[in-house]
């Protein structure tokens, strides 16, 4: 049986869910396909809409198949690009995967192919955001001795930065919380877990108040601001370069860019 009609596959937004969709595309021999996460779907008039339930077995089969077809770099690009959550990225990824399965040797450096190039470019910008978060996370010591940081990254990079922070801050408890996606990662000196927090109504996660944070915290923020100002060379002022390196949307995360603590 061959479906020639246009099909829309809906999934739950997880990577497993997406890979399950890919599995079904091959399984049901679908040709005209759009994959879209359920939360973004608006009823369409034409074609068939199928809701796909995440199935880790099916997802694993696709993933293992890809491992044989792509280099490590090609595979990680796929995952990075997925985490961009860009509208329509699923369809680039699907065509990328189909192209990979069609060929004997890895195609992940065929940059003349539109989808390969696009996936590489999106993966690159996700990689940049990951690196920015490794740089711009600012921990603040809370009253209960946890180093706490909030972020609002452009892409869903928490899964990508977990390892970096775990191996670096192995001897302190910490939480990095994504305010935009409302979940975080928490390290308890042994393992990193995914958490969701309900903040008290009087808690502003951006501000460092004495009610929630250790008293020395404010001193160290002051010292850090002083250091930041003293290490600047005014006669070389170059604000354009400054903003290029730290775009303004990140300033609210950075204690050194606040006027006063």
């Amino acid at each position: 049986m061959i479906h020639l009609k246009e099909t829309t596959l809906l999934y739950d937004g997880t990577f497993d869910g997406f890979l399950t969709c890919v599995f079904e595309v091959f399984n049901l021999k679908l040709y005209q396909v759009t994959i879209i996460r359920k939360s973004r779907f608006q009823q369409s008039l034409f074609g068939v809409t199928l809701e796909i339930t995440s199935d880790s077995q099916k997802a694993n089969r696709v993933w293992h198949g890809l491992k044989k077809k792509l280099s490590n770099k090609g595979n990680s690009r796929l995952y990075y690009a997925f985490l961009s959550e860009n509208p329509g990225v699923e369809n680039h990824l699907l065509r990328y995967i189909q192209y990979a399965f069609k060929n004997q040797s890895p195609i992940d450096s065929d940059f003349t192919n539109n989808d390969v190039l696009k996936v590489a470019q999106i993966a690159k910008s996700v990689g940049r955001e990951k690196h920015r978060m490794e740089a711009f996370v600012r921990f603040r010591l809370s009253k209960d001795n946890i180093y706490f940081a909030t972020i609002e990254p452009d892409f869903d990079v928490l899964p990508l930065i977990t390892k970096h922070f775990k191996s670096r801050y192995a001897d302190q408890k910490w939480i990095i919380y994504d305010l935009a996606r409302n979940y975080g990662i928490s390290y308890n000196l042994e393992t990193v877990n995914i958490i969701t927090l309900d903040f008290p109504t009087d808690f502003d996660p951006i501000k460092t108040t004495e009610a929630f944070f250790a008293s020395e915290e404010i001193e160290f923020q002051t010292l850090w601001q002083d250091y930041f100002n003293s290490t600047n060379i005014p006669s070389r002022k170059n604000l354009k370069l400054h903003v290029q390196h730290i775009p303004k949307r990140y300033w609210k995360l950075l204690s050194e860019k606040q006027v006063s603590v």
Partner: protein
Amino acid sequence: MSFVRTQEKLKILADAAKYDVSCSSSGSKRNNANKGLGDATGMGICHSYTEDGRCVSLLKILLTNYCIFDCAYCVTRKSNDIKRAAFQVQEVVDLTINFYRRNYIEGLFLSSGIFKSADYTMERLVSIAKKLRLEENFNGYIHLKSIPGASDELMKEAGLYADRLSVNIEIPTKEGLAVLAPEKRREDFIKPMAKVKNEIIQYKSEMKIIKSTPKFAPAGQSTQMIIGASGESDQQIMWTSNYFYKKFNLKRVYYSGYIPISYDSRLPQIGTDVPMLRENRLYQTDWLMRFYGFEVEEILNNENQNLDLDVDPKLGWALRNLDQFPVNVNKADKRMLARVPGLGMKSVYKIIEARRFRMLNWEHIQRLGVALNRAKYFLECGTREYERRDLTAIQLKSLILQNSNSKYRTALGPQLNLFG
């Protein structure tokens, strides 16, 4: 730690340390094996950027700005009337650890004015690194300054705790050094550098036999030169730099445009512009030497003693060697592709990978992100579309300049601005 006193010292000693350019935190191999604090593997991270656009990766401070020397180019010279301060060992340790725990920094860059003697100063620096490693279980990045004239034993100990060591040669020529820093001799800079180089080689070879050999300065050595303080030519700077890269296996040479800080008649006066464009061209040359396979003599020689300010050094070289172009995108080797103006190494690798699948045409190359406004005069794709006019170097240069926007246009622009 008394907050107010530390705050005052931090302001003075960070301000005094800021003229040291190096802020690299990459290239080390110190992983967090003992569940301690910190991890210095792989790439460096710039945690912030100051308003001058420079990266903040390390806590860069002087241990003290008291100094027995009187080098004309230096803010902390003995005869300068400035506030002096000195950190205690514990203060530096506390600042480093607490900044690191908050993810402000990758580690510590500790330098110092020279008080009492070279060895006395070096000993203090080493003791701080030792305390961080052994007592605080710190695996972050430590960059220590090698104090000129320090003894071999101290340099050896320093290498066991630090990731990188550096000694600044400051003035590119011996003659310049004699004028601006008469108390210092180049031999004093070179001695610790040579010692560290030899130790690195020795530790590396021992590592091959005994795996548990401790690491010795795993991120290597670097140095820095001041540009535009002693009237030297670009050729003198880059040949000196090349000498140090080859002779001492340096990881980096930094070039620092001289920032006028005194009314000394031997130096450019206060109010003189920092030579930032020249500095940029020198860094470009440095990159060509280290990553693009150029020999320094190809770019700077007796006929061309200074770099063009209006075009980058690779384009400058290409314009002098037009007989080597155009280069075929689909056939040329890596070495020759790397010499095409407008092609960076990233583009070169992408081209080499992508052309295994099919012949590349102009559209492919453009979509890969190549700067075609420069590259198109030096490339061909095996098709009939390529630059056919027999342009002279001067014509080519003006064509390229017309079609590009340099961020330095205001610094270069000879033309008058009519409006404001």
